[in-house]
């Protein structure tokens, strides 16, 4: 059977079970709403989140290319290895730059 098909059916079953559980919980006991606190607490997030998120995206894009590399390196041999070495070096330079510029500090 197709794995993807099974996956979708599994997720659908799960969602169905969750909805049923919530319906049961709501039917038996009503939903209680608490009064809110004295003020909403949704501040703007600090700019440091942006720097961490940028780093994350750089790495994530790299990983998107690493996955197929992992699947084929065994067959393609040293050439693929050298190529990925170059790729990783560029990425490492990116981290080093961020480190020097103080993008990795929290407070």
């Amino acid at each position, binding site marked *: 059977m197709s794995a993807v098909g099974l996956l979708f059916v599994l997720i659908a079953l799960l969602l169905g079970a969750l909805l049923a559980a919530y319906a049961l919980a709501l039917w038996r006991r009503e939903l209680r709403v608490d009064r*809110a*606190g*004295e*003020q909403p607490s949704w*501040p*703007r997030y*600090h*700019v440091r989140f942006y720097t961490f998120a940028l780093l994350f995206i750089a790495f994530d894009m790299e990983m998107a290319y690493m996955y197929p590399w992992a699947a084929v390196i065994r067959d393609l041999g040293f050439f693929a290895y050298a190529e990925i070495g170059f790729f990783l070096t560029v990425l490492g330079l990116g981290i080093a730059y961020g480190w020097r510029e103080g993008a990795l500090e929290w407070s």
Partner: protein
Amino acid sequence: MVLTPARSALVPALVVPDEQTWTVFGADPAAFGARPSFDPGTIRRLLAPAQVPAELAAALRAYRTALADDVPVAYGDVAFGGEVTLSTLLEPSTHGEHGHGHGEHDHGEHGHGGHHDMMAIVGEPSADGLVMEPIHLSYGPIGTPLPGGLVADVTLDGDVVAESTVRALLRVERPASPPDLLSPVAWTVAMAGHGVAAAATSPWLRVAAVEIERAVSHLAWLRSLGRLVDSQPLIDKCTRMLTSLQVSRRVLLDDDIGDAWLHAAIGQADFDECRERLDGLVAWVRRSWALRWRLGGRSVVTPSRARELALRGPAARASGVADDARVADPLYRALDFNPVVHSGGDAVARARVRAEEALASVGLAVDALAMAYVGGDARRADARAPAVFESPRGPITARRSSGTWELAAPGADATRRAAADAMIGSEWSAALVGLASFDLSPWRVGW
């Protein structure tokens, strides 16, 4: 207070005296033990003392409303100084749910959220020049690892502390007269400097009692620090030490003295074993990389700042200022006392100072008991206790005025200011650790 795990399956929540402060604990029944839980969602049952100070009663009521609706509340008599076991206190059949009912759902001071314009940025620019909306938070007085009654009003900038004030909901100004079992011995000793008969009349026994109290106070603080950083090994070690030391403390505070009693006291207290284990604990605190990683560099108080604020007590001693009222005491000089001083001024230094002081205190208590047993001539040293006395948190002075006693702690305000200032600029959990490292307690004079 001795806690043993309940045998019945349902382990409820407790409000327990934790070295004579009150902290609300919850217990997860699946854990089958009185493991403190500060998350209101996991509390199944709440037991509170029958007598709660008025200032804390409102906070306790508000805490009660944060719990689930079906959490039963029982008001029981928590006996201080006696052996209280969970299983006897908390049998569901013998303790009916009498008393105050489920508390009011009184959110009088909490208004409705209101509509808030999310796009407008208001407020002062924060430390790095960005204008952020600050979060105002009141941490405490109940349900936190800090002593009950302590409130930290902080303004958070994201999750970094921008401003902070530390205050207490209650304040102890004068002890009960005559002093009862709850009064710290340091108070009675300070008053003894003015001729009041303390519970133990021999000065050596007084010294022993005070030093054991100091060790107990420091270990209880260390345990609460362990609860804050969630370090189970530290909590277990401190709990074991505390139970054995509290037995000896009770023995020493007994009124009846005599040779037979002294024999019994020395035998029962079993100080040598205490000292060995405490030595192991102090070595562990010194070695522990995890503790150093968590506490290192937090809430640094430089020596110049300590002198500027006129800090006293262990906080000053951890910043390199060698300030200890015991140095001037001839009794302590006869026992070869040296104050424990560390430089560094951060939370690690304060933890080390208290741990090493606890170890030194047990040693001093043993020596003092030996002097008492041998009949060491207290007249050779000055038998009267001085008017300034070193309590576990700093010096205490006693003054008699118009029939009542007034105790004052000269360094208390400085410690509170240092604690609040040291929180600023740190991230939330680092700030909490720094605050806890100053050992503030509203249950002691001046705190």
